[in-house]
């Protein structure tokens, strides 16, 4: 079975903390994505990576950065967490642009 694994299902962090969300895929996929899901807003793309060390901004990159040092791992970094970053974060990966994307189970982040 293909797998996209996110390191935590639930996280609670304090305002101002640096937060790392980790995502690992075991399918040798080229593309990896980070989305944020909020009620009524759908899945919004934060960042996209198409190769190791290659990244592109999505629709809402402000307040976030990413790291992809190895093909299988894509990290989302909140440099200084704020309460408006409380959300569900979903990681996904795909082999190519014309193949399906596989999603992780999500990380519910609460910033207090």
């Amino acid at each position, binding site marked *: 079975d293909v797998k996209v694994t996110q390191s935590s299902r639930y996280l609670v962090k304090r305002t101002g903390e640096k937060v790392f969300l980790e995502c690992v895929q075991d399918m040798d996929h080229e593309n990896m994505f980070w989305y944020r899901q909020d009620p009524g807003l759908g899945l919004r793309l934060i960042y996209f990576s198409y190769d190791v060390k290659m990244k592109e901004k999505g629709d809402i990159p402000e307040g976030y950065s990413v790291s992809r040092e190895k093909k299988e791992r894509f990290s989302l970094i909140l440099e200084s967490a704020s309460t408006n970053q409380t959300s569900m974060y979903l990681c996904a990966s*795909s082999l190519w642009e014309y193949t399906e994307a596989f999603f992780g189970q999500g990380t519910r982040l609460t910033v207090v």
Partner: protein
Amino acid sequence: QQPVQSPQAVILREGEDAVINCSSSKALYSVHWYRQKHGEAPVFLMILLKGGEQKGHDKISASFNEKKQQSSLYLTASQLSYSGTYFCGTITQGGSEKLVFGKGMKLTVNP
């Protein structure tokens, strides 16, 4: 830029049909359809790549118009298991491989 989905929500009785629309202001390379049940990750349904394409399995099918700016997902004779939120994802022609999703359509199927 997010594709536009309509309607935003639908309530059906078992056996009824539904259509979900997805449109973009730009020509698309591909359209992806996913369903997400509450508390779960989105699950892939199908991808359409060619203008004029239609594809489907069981009682769920989709079309992609000739101009490659609109797609529709057709749910026929709905079952209780069809309940969930349906998302279309799009990749724009001539750009990067960014997969951008719409706001989703919440489908509730009642007995």
